[in-house]
């Protein structure tokens, strides 16, 4: 299979490489950042990479926007993935909005949006619950 790994293969698929790079960055941010807002940013990057995957896949070399013209031979890009991604973007926006709303509530209740500090508070809460049972 390594025969395929020519320069042409790499260059010809550059849109996919970009997608992969963006996706990995996004995932890495989600996993590695302790700040809840930054996690959302990472999530957005991750989702965007997928949008790009769909959009670039619909692109046809030399194609125009998919608008009906009089010329039946007109080459145009596949509109379906674009439409799909429109939906996916809406979903993404909703997710982001909900995530941010949750962060606001977390900030109000925990006074922090750092993951490790929240974790500590939760540990403390769990410990208190156990000891209160022990008292009874």
């Amino acid at each position, binding site marked *: 299979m390594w025969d395929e790994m020519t320069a042409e293969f790499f260059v010809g698929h550059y849109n996919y490489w970009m997608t992969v790079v963006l996706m990995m960055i996004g*995932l890495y941010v*989600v996993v590695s950042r302790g700040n*809840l807002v930054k*996690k959302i940013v990472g*999530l957005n990057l*991750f*989702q965007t990479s*997928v949008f790009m*995957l*769909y959009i670039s*896949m619909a692109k046809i070399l030399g194609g125009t926007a998919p608008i009906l013209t009089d010329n039946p031979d007109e080459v145009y890009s596949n509109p*379906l*993935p674009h439409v*799909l991604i429109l*939906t*996916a973007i809406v*979903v993404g926006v*909703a*997710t982001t909005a*909900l*995530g941010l709303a*949750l*962060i606001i*509530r*977390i900030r109000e*209740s*925990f006074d922090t949006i750092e993951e490790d500090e*929240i974790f500590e508070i*939760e540990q403390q*809460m769990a410990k208190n*619950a*156990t000891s209160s*049972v*022990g008292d*009874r």
Partner: protein
Amino acid sequence: MLSSLTPHLPVLQVVVPLMAAPLCTLIGNRHLAWTIAFITALAAFVVSALLLGSVLDGSVISYHLGGWAPPWGIEYRIDAANAFVLFIVSLIGVLVLPYARQSIEHEFEASTHTYFYTCYLLCLTGLLGVAATGDAFNVFVFLEISSLATYALVAFGARRDKRALTAAYNYLIMGTIGATFFVIGIGFLYMVTGTLNMADLAVRLAEVGDTRVTRVAFVFILVGMGLKLAMFPLHLWLPNAYNYAPSAVTAFLAATATKVALYVLLRFTFTVFQFDFPVQELTFEYVVMPLALVAMFAASIAAVFQQDVKRLLAYSSIAQVGYMLLGVALLSEAGLTAGIIHLFNHAVTKGALFLAVGCFVYQIGSSRLGDLKGIGKTMPWTTAAFVAGGLSLIGVPLTVGFISKWYLIQASLQTGSLWIAGLIVASSLIAVVYVWRIVEVAYLEPAPEGRANKEAPLAMILPTYALVAASLYFGINSELTSSAASQAATALYSATDLASEGAAQ
């Protein structure tokens, strides 16, 4: 009038709750909102029952949304498999609502109740939509509708315990990653086939054959759905989400959300990718099955050490998902039947258990094991319901859990692996341990002084008992469930017939 609606049942199933959801918020009155929600859920249940009744003979209903013929338009395609799932989801959906009305009184402010019903209906819409649709991308959209509603529903628990917020947040991150993985998988499929209709996909994929793209697509879909259905080790969001969500939400989610995700996985595995894709077979044999087995043990053992009953049941759910996946991973029609029947049986059992725990929480404000001492004497009916559910979890005869175990062990013996049968029973013995911990605390320890002998309100007891009754009835007479499950398995399995039929349209 009614008969003119009959051809539109598949879409009504989804659209009715979708329309009713914003109504709950717009109306602004929580009692009215509840009434709307309940009527809607009841309607959805009736529709699903009608649908199930009309496809149990093996026929398929194909509904073209907006009159656009598939594969260009979106198709709602109801066969025995998804009719069964629709039935489960809407059954639980309608049973939980009267319960929720009572239980949320204690859990958060009355002014937010209308939002709760909206989220609840949206979640129901999403789950029903996922099951009803025959379009791969539509699955994603509905999946996200239900997931977003779910995150909000979990966060409603923040009033009682602020950890619900972080649980909801983590669920959101994990769930979104899962959904995005799923979309990537769909994207690859679209790339090689140029279609999104599942039946059409099946035909085209058979032509494309086993390429690297299809393999990658399959793995992305598997991982994405694995996250949603809490496949071990992608289950990390589940214990906290179930633990801190309001009682009614936990019961609803435990009984439906993971089940629907499992259905999607089954649909893609058996209908879209046809079964003889080698990568698929290998993945199930060497990845899914070992993981399922590990889940059965690791999660059960984790359950044994929990101090909170809700959390204990959450871990038990992860183990039970392991059973379902195990049945599927046996890659035989008998195994698939076992997986599907357990899907139903576990929904009923876990629903009943979480509802019973909700009654405890309502009455004594806690679900911690230490606070449940002597609960069998102060709340005898609720505890009896809980024990009945617990026995079903163990797989004692005359409960649905036994039927599941029977089918699972039978399927594993039929594929000739006695050791899998041995592992199934071994892990269900761990269930004895965690269930009995609760039984001993509830019955054999004295109740703390000053706790009144008071049952939960009837509105909460009745739905609990409805599910308990179901779990006993289908344990004594499994005719209906087993025939529906085997019919569903056949529907999923007969991918080629279905695909050729789809192409003809």
